[in-house]
């Protein structure tokens, strides 16, 4: 029963309420880093990792600190995220300099990815336990990676076709994202089917 619950949290965060395509979170990296599949995938993995650590930290903050000082919520979450990203950056630099170079500027930019702060806030408002929070973080991260990789795949194909000059760039990316989001709306039926 618990296992099933966790799987639904994962699927819900990954497909049905995909962070990027139905909550519009993390649009900046979604538009900025989605021109190559390989970079998109690596950034996705780094984001999943940061999300999992953030989820753990948010659970601890919710349990021990925030009951005493609820007004510190936003500030404490953002400080935790910023230091986690800094920490991850140092670890990756030490363990795998090659990966560090490949990720480049995108690694520090994870701090300003709103999907991560939103993860901590949603987890708090839904009152998830530690384990549920982890499933939620993994689902949200995988959903973000999936959307990023799909978008990168489409954009790699688009480079080979001729596009009218006026629609090139962000306008076209937005319209493609709209179509992707339309496709993801189909997953909404999953929940009612299961119930």
């Amino acid at each position, binding site marked *: 029963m618990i296992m099933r619950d966790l799987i639904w949290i994962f699927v819900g965060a990954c497909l049905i309420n995909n962070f990027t395509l139905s909550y519009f979170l993390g649009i900046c990296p979604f538009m900025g880093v989605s021109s190559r599949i390989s970079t998109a995938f690596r950034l996705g993995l780094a984001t999943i990792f940061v999300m999992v650590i953030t989820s753990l930290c948010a659970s601890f903050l919710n349990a021990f600190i925030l009951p005493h000082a609820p007004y510190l919520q936003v*500030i404490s979450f*953002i400080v935790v995220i910023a230091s986690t990203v800094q920490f991850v950056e140092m670890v990756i630099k030490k363990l795998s300099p090659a990966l560090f170079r490949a990720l480049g500027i995108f690694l520090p930019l994870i701090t300003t990815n709103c999907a991560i702060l939103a993860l901590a806030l949603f987890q708090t408002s839904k009152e998830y336990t530690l384990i549920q929070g982890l499933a939620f973080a993994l689902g949200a991260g995988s959903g973000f990676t999936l959307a990023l990789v799909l978008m990168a795949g489409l954009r790699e194909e688009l480079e080979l076709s001729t596009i009218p000059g006026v*629609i090139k760039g962000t306008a076209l990316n937005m319209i493609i994202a709209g179509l992707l*989001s339309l496709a993801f709306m189909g997953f909404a039926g999953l929940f009612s089917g299961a119930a």
Partner: protein
Amino acid sequence: MADSGSSNPLMLGSQQQAGGGSVDPDRMYREFAKGIWKENPVFVQVLGMCPMLAVTNSAINAVAMGAATAFVLVFSSIFVSLLRSFIPKQVRISTYIIIIATFVTVADMALKAAFPVVHKDLGAFISLIVVNCIILGRQEAFASRNRPLYAVADAIGMSIGFAFALLCLGATREILGSGTLFKYPIMGSNFQPWVIMILPPGGFLMLGMILLVFNWAGQTRAKRRHRADGEANAGGEVGSAS
């Protein structure tokens, strides 16, 4: 984007180091006006997309979001600008984020007390103003290099530009998606609402369309200017030859 000058949004804005001396009203006006149209944060710099798309399914939400963002942007700009010579360069981003987060908490609590319904509609997106790249971008590119008065002018201009963009998208989506504007029915009883417009895909599609119109307008203007320049040059050559 059509405008090649916008390729690096963080470097937009004046670069002058602030010195002493009096306030120049012309410059105040320039800093204020650029955010509304010429360097509009959404349409030209393409920043702040997340709140832009997420809260614009009705015009009221768009206005509330615009007002909350304006409050945070103006007050953090004042503080960053006042503290600009005390903030060490290495930790400046974290400092800005903590200043911004403080004002976001204030805005969040004020909105919750004054307009609980709107606060519920906007949900987590008020707290997410912290990671709105427009705000951090203005602190880094402008407020940390300029005097408080100019920083306020710049912040107010950018806020109006952002609110204008939010309202454009919010009003269009509400009219097409529910047939109303600020909850007043305006499309008549025979109107069949495009429900897709108030759902997530509608946000992406509509913003894509608006950016398309902006690109098209920019290109047409550039072409016309190019042609006018060409004619002027040709006329000058003819004139010098005769």
